[in-house]
C-alpha cells in the first residue's frame, strides 16, 4: 500500500509527463501543418511529370529505345526494397506498420527463392529490420540532420538506387512508405518504381493537348533523362507523405498519451483522497475510543 507521500509524488510525476506529451502534441500539430503544405506544394510537379511521361511513352509507343529503367532487366530475381520510415519514435504504430509490411514482403520473396536487398531510409526502420535481416541491408540513409526535407535528399537516394541498377545489382525496386490519408489514418504502401509501371496514357489533358509534339532532343533521349528524375520525384513524394504521416501519427499518439495521463491522474487522486479520508477516520476513531475509555 503506497503511502500518502508516495501517491502525491506519483501524481506530480504523471502531471509532468502529461505536460510533456501535451507539448509534443502541439509541436506535432504545427509540424504537421507545415509537412502537409510541403506535400501539397510538391503535388503540381509530380502531376505534370506524370502527364509528360504519359505523353512521351505514347509518342515512343513502347518502341525498342525505351531505357532499361522503364522496361526492367527482364528478370525478377533480385529485389531491392527501399524502406522509408521516420527518424524518431513516439508516433504510435507508424514505423512498425511500414516495417511489418516490408517484412511480410521480404518473407514472401525469400520463400519464393528470390534474393532481397534493402536500403533503409530513416533510423527506425533500420532498427526494426536489422533484427531479422541485418545481412540483407545494403545501406541506410540518415535524414536526422535534415531540417526541411528538400528535393536534394530524395535525389541523392534516387541516384544511389539508379547507380545500383546500372551495376546490375537488382532487377526490381519497390518503395515502402506510408501514404498520408488523414491525420488519423496512414496507410503503409508498397510501390514499384523500377521497372517503372508505365503511366496509364490518358487520352487527353485538360486542354486537349494530345497534339503531336516536337521533341528536342529525341524522345528516347528525353525519356532517359526523365525516368531517373521521375524516380527521384516518386521518392521525394514518398518522403513528404511519410513526414506528414509521421506528424499525424505522433499527434494522435500524443493525444492518446495526454488523455491516458489524465485518466491516471484521476484514478490516483481518488485513491489519494480515499486514503487521506481513511486516515482521518482512523485518527477520529482513535480519539473517540480513547475518550470513551476514560
Amino acid at each position, binding site marked *: 500500500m503506497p503511502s500518502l507521500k508516495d501517491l502525491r509524488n506519483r501524481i506530480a510525476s504523471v502531471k509532468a509527463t502529461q505536460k510533456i506529451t501535451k507539448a509534443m502534441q502541439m509541436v506535432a500539430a504545427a509540424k504537421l501543418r507545415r509537412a502537409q503544405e510541403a506535400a501539397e506544394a510538391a503535388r*503540381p510537379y509530380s502531376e505534370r511529370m506524370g502527364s509528360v511521361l504519359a505523353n512521351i511513352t505514347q509518342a515512343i509507343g513502347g518502341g525498342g529505345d525505351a531505357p532499361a529503367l522503364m522496361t526492367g532487366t527482364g528478370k525478377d530475381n533480385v529485389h531491392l526494397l527501399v524502406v522509408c520510415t521516420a527518424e524518431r519514435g513516439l508516433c504510435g504504430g507508424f514505423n512498425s506498420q511500414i516495417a511489418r509490411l516490408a517484412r511480410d514482403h521480404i518473407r514472401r520473396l525469400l520463400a519464393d527463392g528470390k534474393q532481397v536487398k534493402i536500403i533503409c531510409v530513416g533510423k527506425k526502420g533500420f532498427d526494426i529490420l536489422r533484427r531479422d535481416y541485418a545481412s540483407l541491408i545494403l545501406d541506410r540513409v540518415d535524414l536526422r540532420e535534415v531540417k526541411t526535407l528538400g*528535393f536534394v535528399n530524395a535525389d541523392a537516394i534516387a541516384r544511389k538506387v539508379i547507380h545500383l541498377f546500372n551495376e546490375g545489382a537488382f532487377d526490381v525496386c519497390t518503395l515502402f512508405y506510408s501514404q498520408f490519408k488523414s491525420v488519423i489514418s496512414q496507410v503503409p504502401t508498397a510501390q514499384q518504381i523500377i521497372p517503372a509501371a508505365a503511366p496509364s496514357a490518358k487520352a487527353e489533358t485538360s*486542354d486537349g*493537348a494530345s*497534339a503531336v509534339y516536337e521533341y*528536342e*532532343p529525341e524522345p528516347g533521349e528525353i525519356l532517359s*533523362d526523365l525516368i531517373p528524375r521521375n524516380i527521384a520525384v516518386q521518392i*521525394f513524394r514518398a518522403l513528404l507523405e511519410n513526414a506528414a504521416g509521421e506528424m499525424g501519427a505522433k499527434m494522435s499518439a500524443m493525444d492518446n498519451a495526454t488523455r491516458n495521463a489524465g485518466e491516471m491522474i484521476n484514478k490516483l487522486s481518488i485513491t489519494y483522497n480515499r486514503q487521506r479520508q481513511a486516515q482521518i477516520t482512523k485518527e477520529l476513531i482513535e480519539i473517540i475510543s480513547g475518550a470513551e475509555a476514560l
Partner: protein
Amino acid sequence: MAEAFKFELVSPERLLVSEQVESVVIPGAEGEMTVMANHAPVMTTIKPGVVTVKSASGGEERYVVFGGFADIVPAGCTLLAESAVAVKNVDRADLARRIQDAKEDAADAKDDQSRSKAEQFLAQLTTLESALLPA
C-alpha cells in the same frame, strides 16, 4: 502588344510562377528559345541557365534553373525545373558547390561518354556563373 499565355515554373518543392506572360526565354538543351503564345507543341530538356519571364503586366523576372524540361503547347508552357531560384536570391556558395561537384563528377567519370557529359554540364555551369557574377 503580344498575346498572353499561361506560364508555369514548377520545382519539386513548389510552384514558383503561375501567371499570364507575354514571352519566356528558355535555355533549351539545343539552344535558347523564346516561347510566345501559340507556339507549336515542343518538349525539350533544359540545361542550367537563366529563364527570363516577361509577364503580361509588363514586368520582367529572371530565374536560375538547374536542369529540367519544358512542355510547350499552344495554350501554355510548363517548365519543370530540378531546382529554380529567382536571380536575386541566387546563393553563390551553392553555385560554387554545384560547380565543385560537377568537377568531381568529370574527374571520376569512368568512360568517355559519361566524362563528356559531365564536362558539358560543368561548362554550362561555369557559363552560368560568369553570366551571373557581375550582376
